[in-house]
């Protein structure tokens, strides 16, 4: 009896979980499906789900009309650059906060996080003006720095949490064993923190890849990443849903694939230390 109830419960849980999962995934699925429809089918009422004339026309039009590779390159440079730069700055910061904390360490961490509570548009004007004054509007290097600064609090917090999980006694043992600070970091701490560092890198790369507010506002042509590529197909006039969908699919495909292959690492990193 109890077992029957349990398996009924399990079945119910499975159904609910799948429903929620599909609900969340549905917009992406719909976008992908729409990208293979003709413009007329894309806005058909009632909408067609699977049974339509599959076509690659939208992709060829989009590829013809805009330089996808340039947008992709910009996205890779901006997301990758800001992530690497961020981790380079955050590792020493998180290290000192985790292993040689001062009385103010907690306050500094909270203050850093508080910058994430400010609506981005609140500082749009000053940053926009700064970019003009420095002549770095529509500049990839500038975006690398800006996105790095925007995500830095999260990187520091994540790394700090991972480092805190590493027992101080192991570092002390290394010191007793004759390790210099460099040896300690290179041979003991970093290998132990690799899952944490990797998942921080991944998450930050995804955040930077998807970041739209600053990339749309601070770029026009040269530095425009895939977010701008999508936006260029969203037009208030005309019916371009299918082409917009094709552009969106092309923009999210790289990150979806990356996410798919790294999900094990990502989950491991996000739950690092929770289980021994």
């Amino acid at each position, binding site marked *: 009896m109890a077992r029957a109830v349990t398996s009924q419960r399990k079945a119910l849980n499975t159904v609910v979980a799948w429903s929620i999962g599909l609900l969340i995934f549905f917009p992406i699925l719909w976008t992908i499906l729409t990208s293979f429809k003709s413009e007329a089918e894309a806005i058909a009422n009632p909408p067609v789900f699977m049974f339509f004339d599959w076509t690659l026309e939208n992709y060829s039009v989009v590829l013809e009309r805009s330089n996808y590779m340039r947008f992709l390159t910009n996205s890779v440079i901006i997301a990758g650059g800001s992530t690497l730069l961020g981790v380079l700055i955050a590792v020493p910061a998180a290290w000192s906060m985790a292993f040689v904390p001062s009385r103010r360490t907690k306050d500094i961490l909270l203050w850093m996080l508080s910058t994430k509570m400010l609506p981005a548009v609140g500082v749009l004007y000053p940053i926009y003006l700064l970019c003009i004054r420095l002549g770095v509007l529509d500049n990839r290097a500038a975006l690398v720095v800006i996105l790095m600064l925007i995500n830095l609090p999260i990187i520091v917090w994540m790394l700090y949490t991972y480092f805190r999980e590493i027992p101080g*006694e*192991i570092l002390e*043992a290394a*010191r*007793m*064993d*004759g*390790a210099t600070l460099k040896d300690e970091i290179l041979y003991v701490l970093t290998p*132990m923190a690799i899952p944490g560092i990797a998942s921080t890198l991944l998450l930050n790369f995804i955040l930077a890849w998807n970041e739209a507010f600053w990339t749309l506002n601070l770029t026009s042509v040269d530095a425009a990443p895939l977010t701008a590529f999508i936006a260029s197909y969203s037009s208030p006039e005309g019916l371009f849903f299918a082409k917009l969908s094709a552009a969106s699919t092309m923009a999210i495909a790289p990150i979806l694939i990356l996410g798919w292959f790294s999900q094990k690492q990502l989950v491991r990193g996000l739950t690092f230390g929770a289980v021994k």
Partner: protein
Amino acid sequence: MGRIQLKQVKKAFGDVVVIPPLDLEIVDGEFVVFVGPSGCGKSTLLRLIAGLEDTTSGVIEIDGEDATALPPAKRRLAMVFQSYALYPHMTVRKNIAFPLRMAKMDQAEQDRRIEAAAKALNLTDYLHRRPGQLSGGQRQRVAIGRAIVREPAAFLFDEPLSNLDAALRVGMRMEISELHKKLKTTMVYVTHDQVEAMTMADKIVVLQAGVIEQVGSPLDLYHTPRNKFVAGFIGSPRMNLVEGTEAAKHNATTIGVRPEHIDISTTEGLWQGTVGVAEHLGSDTFLHVHGVPGCDPVTVRIAGDVALNHGDTVHLTPRADQIHKFDAQGLRIS
């Protein structure tokens, strides 16, 4: 060589003085145990010797050389931690090799030392495993192996057996003692367990609130504790400390008598009381007797099994030559 001298060594964290200036000499080859209740500063003292904490003032000398400002790596000391502190991402072999690798020792010598240590510690079959695949006792042996390959001037042990279960603890206790007999290297060992201190030490240092209460051999401390604290801390079960009129009869504020130094009778004796809890261990019987003025309960240890149980009336007589006398300050009156 491994002679360690502490001269007026003091440690304070901000305004809190955990170790007021103290002097201590550890002779080469000695097994010294720091013992005391938790928070008495024994681990801090060990960490000061290791160099993992900075001294606030005073001098630490190792083999006559001032080591106060030396980093831990330069003190030629090896440490075994309570949590073992093994490198989880390295195999047992690499764990043991780590200090040798840091010292840039040549590979052949490294291998020779690792094999020797592994053999001595029964780890030969486990060299390729990671710490996570070992039992608690094996991990502790790896930690000891990592310490011995360096051939240090002295070993420092920080409560190394606390994470092991009782049976394993007794075994490891003997292994460490035997290791000391074999290597004849100075060992400084921190524990809160007075049984470990009594069984392993050449010299015990009893600490309370950062102050050395007494230094001496285990039997010195047992037979002539310098004060009430040492009297109560060393020996198991604890010494009975009797106050009031019974103590006054001996011209003392407090008298102490160990459970094994009390004679028991059902008919006559100096003190009369009622048995509360009776612990029958087979080899010994511990009786906790209520009703003796000035000390409640009085613990009595009787060899073998005796048929006394809860509620029985008993008469106790402390052996006159085994009574310890203490004054109002708690110091021994000889």
